[in-house]
């Protein structure tokens, strides 16, 4: 059969899927400084029955020369309280460094002298995570192909305000928006 030279390259260009290289620089790294800091605040999922049902701590710091690390703690309260049984606390961390020749950051593993860095293999179940800066907003993305072939996309937007960061989190399961959380924080001295 005819395979158009058996080269999907044309197709990939057509999809806009083949990323252009050499057009970006490391300006993204310079834009990071304004986000560095410690923030505390609260957030709520749209389906939450209690307003401000979650407490949130966020720390954004430099990582290596031009990267950044972000740590966030979420405390999901019970009836608006955090001193009763059933309260949940999660701590998440991610480390990013600039991608070569592109204005984005890619996730790397935290420094570990006992392990070699492992290349991400999305079709083997590894989530791919990346970040970018757009004006006063820091975007962090996580994308995973699940075992059954569906996908999960998470988008974190953290936007600078006069006093701190506003947060929007969205999670899509195979194209469907299944979770949305909004919150606000203030910058504090750490």
């Amino acid at each position: 059969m005819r395979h158009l030279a058996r080269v999907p390259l044309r197709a990939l260009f057509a999809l806009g899927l083949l990323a252009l290289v050499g057009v970006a620089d490391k300006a993204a790294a310079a834009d990071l400084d304004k986000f560095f800091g410690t923030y505390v605040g609260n957030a709520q999922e749209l389906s939450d029955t209690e307003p401000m049902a979650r407490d949130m701590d966020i720390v954004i710091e430099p990582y290596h020369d031009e990267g950044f690390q972000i740590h966030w703690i979420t405390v999901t309260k019970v009836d608006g309280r955090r001193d009763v049984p059933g309260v949940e606390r999660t701590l998440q961390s991610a480390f990013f460094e600039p991608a070569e020749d592109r204005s984005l950051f890619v996730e790397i593993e935290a420094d570990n002298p006992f392990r070699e860095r492992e290349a991400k293999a999305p079709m083997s179940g590894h989530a791919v995570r990346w970040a970018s800066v757009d004006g006063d907003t820091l975007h962090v993305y996580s994308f995973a192909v699940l075992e059954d072939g569906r996908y999960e996309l998470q988008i974190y937007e953290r936007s600078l305000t006069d006093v701190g960061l506003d947060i929007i989190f969205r999670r899509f399961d195979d194209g469907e928006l299944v979770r949305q959380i909004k919150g606000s924080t203030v910058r504090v001295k750490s």
Partner: protein
Amino acid sequence: MRYPGVLRPLVLIGVILAASPAFGQEALPASFDGDWQGKELTVDEGNADLKATAEDLNVQIVPDDSGFWMHWTALSRDGTGGALARQPVEARFEPSDRPGVFVFDSEQSSLLLSLFGDPATNNPLEGEPLLWARLEGDTLSVYGLAINPDGSFDLYQHVRTVTGDTMTARHTHRTEGDVVVLEGRLARAGG
């Protein structure tokens, strides 16, 4: 190693199944094969750049050994985020070791793709597109993710369901800020 009489045939069957290339893999049903022509466009949302037609849903699916080729039309923007435009697309997929999941066959395209680096990684973090497909019952979904140089993304999801000589299709192109959706009905040419 010795096996009781009843176990031996079961062990043999297990060994044969495990050694078979088809074990854990699933070919695309023949019901998808053919040249499918768009007959009706029922949904056209989020698209202000061009007038979509039923023909934009056209797709050709051709079996190829254990995998399949697919030819279709995508509505995509260029790298600068310009207007939507029609672009012909083709790709080959082959079964993975996950039931119902097909991976993009990059080796078929190594000649030219190699100009842009190792095409085998299928890793969007390295500037390459991530393409795959999923079969669930009579529904085939083809996905594409690209991470652009500025960190924005383009995510494609084309879902096609076959019933006899009729196919329904839903094409979704999602970016962070908007979604373009086309839906419609197709018929098998000559069907």
